């Protein structure tokens, strides 16, 4: 069948001169990465989820202060303790009823413990009657604080160490790499525990303990990038113009490895969240009555058989936040390095 040229319509530029014009708007590295990131639905959802969670953690300071989550009415522990989640709606498992092991029907705990009618705990209460919703809010805040500050310290140490090692090269690089090798052959758990023991409990010591293990990966990545980037012509140009090494690092090396660094950050945060929980599980976590996701999980462990929601809710929050960081990290890695995502 002969093609009928009448059926074709020229779209886009209408005159031939415009058609010859070979160009599209120039995109900067960040615009290009953003364009690619937007194509990855999971990463975008994760990003909005994390923005929401971070915003929630900050804003919650105003309506759920630490004090409100820690305090409890010691006279009425018997009334308010271990109440199951109650949404007020007849949703099975979320209506204030819970099935004790061995029973065949669920009992309405709110009724049997004589909780004043109309009072509902959307995520239930813990073993001394504190609202789990408030505890989890505060716990999430502490866990995120620990993870983000620790990651920030990792970033500072790792980038400085990596750039210095890679830039200097020679025996300095050699010695610095051996140090990393030695440190990374000691299990992280050991380092975190030792520092935790040494510094005693408390948020600050947890942050330091976690930060001391996380920078190794960052330093290694940054050093490898530095080795590649320092051979570039623009670095040579800056050097021959007499720019100082420090300024070259700040102006040329670090901006050019920003993608790698951001991806590494996304992978460090979930690790830090996990190690905070590990520290809580081995009694080196935050001091009660302060709550973190990890301490909520390990405190509720003994009652798993009877009040599973007390442990499953903080666990789910921890997993969701970690998952979002990892998904966004995966998406960003593909967006920054399009060649890696072509397969």
């Amino acid at each position, binding site marked *: 069948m002969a093609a009928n040229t009448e059926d074709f319509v020229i779209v886009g530029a209408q005159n031939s001169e415009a058609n010859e014009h070979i160009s599209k708007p120039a995109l900067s590295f960040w615009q290009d990465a953003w364009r690619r990131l937007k194509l990855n639905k999971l990463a975008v959802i994760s990003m909005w989820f994390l923005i929401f969670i971070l915003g929630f953690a900050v804003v919650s300071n105003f309506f759920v202060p630490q004090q409100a989550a820690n305090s409890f009415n010691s006279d009425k522990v018997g009334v308010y303790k271990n109440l199951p989640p109650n949404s007020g709606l007849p949703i099975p498992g979320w209506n204030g009823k819970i099935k004790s092991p061995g029973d065949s029907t669920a009992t309405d705990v709110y009724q049997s413990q004589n909780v004043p009618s109309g009072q509902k705990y959307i995520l239930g209460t813990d073993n001394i009657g504190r609202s789990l919703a408030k505890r989890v809010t505060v716990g999430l805040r502490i866990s995120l604080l620990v993870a983000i500050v620790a990651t920030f310290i990792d970033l500072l140490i790792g980038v400085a160490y990596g750039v210095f090692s890679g830039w200097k090269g020679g025996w300095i690089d050699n010695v610095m790499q051996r140090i990393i090798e*030695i440190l990374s*052959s000691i299990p992280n758990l050991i380092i975190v525990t030792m520092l935790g023991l040494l510094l005693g409990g408390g948020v600050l010591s947890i942050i330091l303990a976690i930060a001391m293990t996380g920078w190794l990966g960052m330093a290694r990545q940054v050093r490898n990038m530095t080795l590649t980037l320092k051979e570039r012509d623009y670095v040579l140009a800056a050097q021959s113009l007499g720019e100082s090494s420090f300024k070259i690092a700040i102006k040329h090396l670090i901006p050019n490895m920003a993608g790698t660094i951001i991806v590494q950050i996304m992978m460090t945060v979930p690790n830090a969240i996990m190690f905070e929980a*590990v520290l809580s599980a081995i009694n080196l976590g935050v001091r009660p009555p302060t709550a973190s996701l990890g301490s909520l999980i390990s405190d509720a462990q003994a009652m798993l058989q009877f009040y599973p929601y007390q442990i499953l809710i903080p666990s789910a929050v921890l997993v969701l936040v970690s998952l979002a960081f990892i998904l966004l990290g995966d998406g960003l890695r593909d967006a920054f390095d399009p060649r890696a995502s072509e397969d």
Partner: protein
Amino acid sequence: MWKYIFKRLVLLVFTLFLVTTATFFLMQIMPGTPFNNPKLTPEALAQLKTTYGLDLPVWQQYLNYLVGAAHGDFGTSFQYQNQSVSMLIGQRLPVSAQLGAQALVVGVIAGLFMGAASARNKNNKIDGTLGIISTLGISIPSFILGIVLVYLFGFKWPLFPVSGWGDSFSQTILPTLALAVSPAAVTTRFVRSEMIESLSSDYVQLAKAKGLSAKEVVNQHAYRNSMIPVLTLIGPMAAGLLTGSTLIEQIFSIPGIGQQFVLSIPSKDFPVIMGTTIVYSAMLMVMILITDILTAIVDPRVRLQ
């Protein structure tokens, strides 16, 4: 090759020496003492200190400890009277080793299958599902998974025992599963990308051109070459298993060294903490070394310097 192994062994011993020294002096400055029972009279306290050699000057304690550690003697436990630390660890090490090995084998084998399935069904539903599963597997810490497994298969549908070790094989199923998920997920992601790369490589093109069926190409050419790099993952995975198994042993009441380590922290049983620290570090370093050597043996493209 031998020269390389020798060099690595020297570095390993040196690192162990550093770890031993660091832990020893950390324990010296650690706040608190295991003998804080107010009922102890000063005489009894002095007696205890002499028994454990704590009355000696620090440098002498250090030298004694180093010499002892070199002979596999890590002193005597503070909390269990007359129990030597090496004996405590010796009894518990096989348990932890078995748990770790089981998890590693199950995880890697599952990961190999899932990764290969994922790569062969690139960008379709199977690949997508496996991708979601493996990402989930990476983001769930093993102890949370352990807790969920205890709840589901111990309490909700009581299918498996949830505590103890050594009485029956079924006791090992849940802890192994909890620990195996993360290695499985890591392996899946890794094998997938390796396999996709080798499926587009020249020798696979050649095999196709020779007229081999798709199945033969995958099984005989692509799969074998994608399996080698998985070896390099075993070192990092072992590190993850060490952390994971500590908490898993606690959750499932498994008498391994991880449980011992956790128990000795609140009781400030310093000799046990030091002993487990050194054994843990040695285990990890040996795993990394074995991984590196194996990689060099099976893949001649890797040059050891």
